[in-house]
């Protein structure tokens, strides 16, 4: 059997899970799109845009994505230490992203603009919150992979690392759609 194929085999099942997650996000996007004008006098999509904060969030997630890819490269190169450092970098940047999102959500809720305020805000919190939840759970998984990498031989961790990297890239891909359509074009569409 082709070595590259046997390499990819453990990732196949995980890939299918990611695709099913894509369908979940498609449903959330559809909900948001249908409800986006039902603001009931509350803040609309345009009011949520804080360009500098959004930019920091986006770049943090993008660089985190690169760090994850470099962890994979280090792992393939046989360097456990470098892989661990890149994983930590990816985790820290993920925390930056999450911290800013929690800050955004808590400010909205403190102002009385929580998910119960309008159908638009329900759709917004469901969509962006589900993505944030994925990043949070991904961070926990990342820590588990770090521990596994630290304690076990590198070769045993590589399939886990490959799946984790795939998941992390997928989260960035979902974020591209969210920051473009929900935030940047929020008041335009």
């Amino acid at each position, binding site marked *: 059997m082709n070595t590259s194929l046997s390499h990819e085999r453990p990732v196949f099942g995980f890939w299918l899970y990611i695709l099913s997650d894509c369908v979940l996000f498609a449903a959330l996007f559809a909900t948001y799109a249908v409800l986006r004008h039902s603001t*009931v006098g509350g803040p609309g999509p345009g009011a949520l845009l804080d360009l500098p904060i959004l930019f920091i969030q986006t*770049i943090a997630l993008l660089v985190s994505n690169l760090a994850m890819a470099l962890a994979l490269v280090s792992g393939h190169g046989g360097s456990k230490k470098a892989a661990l450092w890149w994983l930590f970098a990816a985790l820290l940047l993920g925390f930056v992203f999450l911290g800013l999102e929690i800050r955004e959500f808590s400010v909205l809720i403190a102002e009385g603009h929580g998910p119960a305020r309008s159908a638009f805000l329900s759709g917004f919190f469901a969509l962006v919150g589900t993505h944030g939840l994925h990043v949070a759970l991904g961070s926990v998984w990342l820590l588990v992979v770090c521990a596994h990498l630290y304690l076990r031989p590198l070769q045993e961790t590589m399939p886990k690392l490959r799946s984790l990297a795939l998941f992390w890239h997928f989260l960035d891909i979902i974020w*591209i759609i969210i920051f473009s359509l929900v935030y940047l074009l929020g008041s335009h*569409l």
Partner: protein
Amino acid sequence: MITRYLTGFSLSFLLTLLSFGVVWFHQQTGHELPVHAYVVVAVIAAALAQLMVQFVYFLEIGKKSGAWRLVTLSLTLVVAAIVLGGSLWIMATLGHAAPSERFRGIPSPQTQVD
């Protein structure tokens, strides 16, 4: 392998800058330049381009040994398009028959939270 990731990252970074730059400039010029339609086209085009970049450089779509990725992803995108397009279509069409304006998505003071 590392060059591929660095290329993917650089392209993504530039496309992100483009999206934010266009919207930032739009805000700076008091929402006049570039005109509304161009902002929408530019941001959507940049997002689509960045999706392609991520697919090719990070998810390894298009590698010969990974044809199954392209096939399964394509099918998922079809399902996603049906869910998204179908929802918007149905809800937009409902508006013609609905007695209340809220089904057309027009915010009105009478609109209730369900």
